[in-house]
C-alpha cells in the first residue's frame, strides 16, 4: 500500500532518472535515500528542503501531492499535480447541491452527525459517565437535525465541542495536558498544540484522498467555500477528526509516549518539537494503516481507505445514485 512520507530533517529532494532521492548531510557526508516512487501516497515536509522543477515534474507525473509545513508544524500549502481525471458534469452537480439551501443543509448536517457520533463514541469508550455527556447526546445532538442554516448548525456544534473538550480532562490522566479552553493560531498550550497538529494532518490526508477522485475540493457545504482553499476537505475531516485524531492524543498522553519535553513553549504558545512530531506521526501512520472488515464490501479496508470510501459516497450522492449517509464506526 502506498504510504505517506514525512520528512523531518533538512536536505534536498532530487530526481535522478526515474528515482527520487532524499539527500541530507550528516557530519560532512551526504546520505542518499531512495524513495520508491510507486509506494508514495504523498509527501509531508516539515524540514528545510530544496527541490527543483525536475523533481516536481516527476511528482506530477506520478500524481503525488507534496504538503509543506513551517517550522512550527503549521500548514503552509501544497503542491498538487494537475488533476488528470476531472468530471465537468460532477462539478455541475456539486454546485447544484451547494446553491440549493436544503440540499446544502442536508450535507452539512450529515458531516456534523458523523462528527458527533464519533465524539460520543470516544466518550463512551473512555468510560465517561453517561450523566456527564447526557446534554450532548440528549439535548444538543437532536437539535442539529432541525437547523436550517450552516451558521445555526455551527453554533450548536461549537457548543458540543466546548462540552466535549471539557470532558477531555476526565479522559486525560496527566494534568500537564488538561485543557482550559480550545484555542488555535497559535495554540497556547501543549494539548491545544496536539489537537491543532492532528487536525492539520487530517485535513491534508482528506485532501489527498479527495484529490484522487473527481470531487472538486473547493466546493463545500458545512464550511463556506471562502473559508479555506480546499474547504470540502474541512467538511469531510469533521467526521474523521474524532475518529482518528482524538484517540491518538488520548493514547499518546495516557501511555506516556509524549511528555512536556516534546514541546517547545513560550509565554503565549506551544508547538511540538521534532521529537514530538515524530512520535505523533508514527502513531498517526499506524492508525491510518489499521484495518477493519467492511460490512458491505466484505473485505478488509484500512482507516485511510475509509476516507476514500466517504468520497465515493459523496459522488454517488451528487449523481443521485444513493443518498449520502455519514460514516459511523460500527464496532
Amino acid at each position: 500500500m502506498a504510504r505517506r512520507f514525512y520528512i523531518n530533517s533538512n536536505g534536498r529532494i532530487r530526481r535522478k532518472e526515474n528515482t527520487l532521492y532524499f539527500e541530507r548531510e550528516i557530519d560532512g557526508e551526504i546520505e542518499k535515500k531512495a524513495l520508491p516512487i510507486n509506494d508514495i501516497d504523498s509527501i509531508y515536509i516539515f524540514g528545510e528542503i530544496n527541490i527543483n522543477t525536475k523533481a516536481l515534474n516527476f511528482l506530477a507525473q506520478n500524481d503525488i501531492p507534496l504538503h509543506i509545513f513551517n517550522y512550527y508544524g503549521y500548514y503552509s500549502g501544497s503542491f498538487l499535480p494537475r488533476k488528470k481525471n476531472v468530471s465537468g458534469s460532477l462539478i455541475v452537480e456539486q454546485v447544484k447541491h451547494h446553491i440549493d439551501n436544503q440540499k446544502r443543509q442536508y450535507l452539512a448536517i450529515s458531516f456534523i452527525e458523523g462528527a458527533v457520533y464519533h465524539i460520543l463514541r470516544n466518550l463512551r469508550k473512555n468510560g465517561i459517565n453517561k450523566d456527564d455527556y447526557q446534554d450532548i447526546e440528549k439535548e444538543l445532538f437532536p437539535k442539529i437535525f432541525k437547523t436550517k442554516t450552516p451558521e445555526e448548525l455551527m453554533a450548536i456544534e461549537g457548543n458540543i465541542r466546548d462540552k466535549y473538550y471539557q470532558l477531555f480532562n476526565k479522559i486525560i490522566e496527566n494534568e500537564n495536558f488538561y485543557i482550559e479552553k480550545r484555542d488555535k493560531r497559535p495554540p497556547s498550550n501543549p494539548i491545544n498544540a496536539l489537537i491543532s497538529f492532528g487536525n492539520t494532518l487530517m485535513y491534508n490526508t482528506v485532501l489527498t484522498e479527495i484529490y484522487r477522485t473527481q470531487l472538486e475540493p473547493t466546493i463545500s457545504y458545512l464550511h463556506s467555500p471562502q473559508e479555506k482553499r480546499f474547504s470540502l476537505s474541512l467538511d469531510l475531516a469533521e467526521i474523521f477528526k474524532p475518529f482518528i485524531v482524538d484517540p491518538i492524543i488520548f493514547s499518546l498522553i495516557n501511555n506516556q509516549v509524549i511528555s512536556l519535553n516534546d514541546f517547545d513553549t513560550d509565554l503565549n504558545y506551544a508547538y511540538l518539537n521534532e521529537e514530538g512530531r515524530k512520535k505523533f506521526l508514527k502513531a498517526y501512520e499506524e492508525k491510518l494503516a489499521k484495518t477493519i472488515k467492511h460490512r458491505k464490501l466484505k473485505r478488509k479496508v484500512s482507516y485511510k481507505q475509509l476516507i476514500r470510501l466517504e468520497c465515493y459516497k459523496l459522488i454517488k450522492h451528487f449523481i443521485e445514485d444513493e443518498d449520502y449517509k455519514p460514516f459511523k464506526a460500527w464496532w
Partner: protein
Amino acid sequence: MEDINFEELKTNGIKINYYYVCKRKLWLFDRKISMELSDRMILGQIVHQESYKRDKPKEVLIDNLISIDIVDNLNIREVKLSDKMALADKMQILYYLYYLKKLGINKKGIINYPRLRKREFLELTEKDEKEIEKTLIEINKILKSEKPPPVINSPICKKCSYFEFCYA
C-alpha cells in the same frame, strides 16, 4: 429496422465494450467518473504495448473516436489480457469493423490473447451489424439518463476497478 443515424450515435470502442460488461460502468465512464489505475489495468496496458512488437502495427485514430491497430491489408487486431470478457471484446472489434465498413473499408478482425497463446478470428455478418445498431441506440439512451444504472451485483464486480465505488 430502418437505418440508424450513425453520425449521431457513433461512439468510441470502449463504450461498446463497457455496454456488454456493465451499463453502470458505461454511464460513469461517460461522465468521466473514473477510478485510479489498478495493477491489473497497468498489466493490460503493458501487454498491449509489449506484444507483437515485430509486426509494427500502424495505429490509426479515426474521428478522434476509435483507435485501431491495422496489421495488414486484411485484418485489424486487438490485444487482450484474458478472455473473461470475450463477448464484450468481440463486440468491440465487430464495432470497429462496422465503423470501417461505413467508411467504405472492408476488413476482418483478430483478437489476440498473448498470455493464453490464443487467437480469435472475426468477420462482420449482417446479424452483427443489426446487433451493433441496436447497441448504439441503447447506449445513447443510457447515457442520456440523469442517474446511473443500478449496481449489477455480479461476480465480475469483485475484480472491477469500480467495486469500492459501487458497494461502499
